[in-house]
């Protein structure tokens, strides 16, 4: 009973966390809710997993859950990879605009976040330009 209550609480916490995120996609919320609901049912009726496994010619319920978990993990990994690629693309575009903007304003980027004007572009500059 303790294990079942603890696991149920954990799944409900996952559900709450998922819904607390600013992801309004209906399919995402539906997926998370479905998985958590299924998980709670299996926790309180483990024989259900065994019956479902037998229906698809898998011997044990635990094996079925393992296979489903592997498939789900793969899907999550692919999704994370795709999101990282989207972020990479955004960072590239942002870095590009920074480089072009700085060049257009006659500034140059110095590692450490300091953007300095090229000295000879300043009205009061004299001597040799230095970027240090």
């Amino acid at each position, binding site marked *: 009973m303790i294990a079942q209550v603890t696991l149920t609480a954990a799944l409900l916490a996952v559900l709450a966390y998922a819904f607390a995120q600013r992801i309004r996609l209906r399919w995402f919320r539906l997926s998370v809710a479905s998985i958590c609901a299924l998980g709670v049912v299996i926790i309180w009726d483990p024989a259900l997993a065994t019956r479902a496994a037998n229906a698809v010619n898998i011997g044990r319920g635990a094996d079925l859950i393992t296979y489903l978990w592997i498939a789900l993990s793969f899907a999550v990994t692919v999704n994370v990879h795709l999101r990282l690629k989207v972020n990479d693309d955004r960072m590239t575009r942002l870095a*590009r605009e920074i*480089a072009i903007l700085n*060049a257009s304003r006659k500034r*140059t980027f110095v590692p450490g976040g300091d953007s300095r004007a090229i000295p000879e572009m300043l009205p009061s500059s004299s001597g040799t330009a230095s970027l240090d």
Partner: protein
Amino acid sequence: MTPSEGERPEKISERTFVVIPAFNEDRVIADVLKEVLGVYPDVILVDDGSTDRTAEIAFEAGAQVLRHPFNLGQGAALQTGIDYAIRNGASLIVTFDADGQHEVGDVATMIGLLERNDADVVLGSRFLGRTDGLARSKRLLLKGAILFTNATSGLRLTDTHNGLRVMRARAARRIRLTQNGMAHASELLHQIAALRLRFIEAPVTVRYSAYSAAKGQAVTGALSILYDLFYARISK
């Protein structure tokens, strides 16, 4: 006949920008820029997050310097330079390597070919031209890359990974490189094929020094390129 240094090629368009992507090239960039700026006044050096003095040296040499705040890859640097050139009124855009492998005299030949044939893009080919100091292993790697890129793009090129290119701004506007790394070379060719741009190849010279050979692609780099291209294909 190749124009001598300082002599502008005939029929050069009003604004020809030479885009040079660079990463940690402070040992050679001054010489490269001296050679290029001697013929083409509009040189854009895109410093791809170098940790040495590449950008400072390029600025002192007289190039227009753009700096990425962090390293993104040669493909990203190239696209940044192309975007900047277009926004500043370029008619022709030349891509040129920063490591001293290319000869500035070849650019005039390529521009002449572009204009005589009314092409959109001229691609340099070391295998139609000349290579100095090309190692056998590198030659094999390049030949493999040529076979792969020709098979996947439908083009029939003799050199698919040469950084020396000339393109009209109208063609450059239609090309959009999304591969930040070295796979951009293949991506560029795929886009040329997909957009049905008129292209020709031109014989060029590629010089290999110990310095430039050390900076070239290893086999692991080639595998990385293959992965990038495969991923780009399946994520469409």
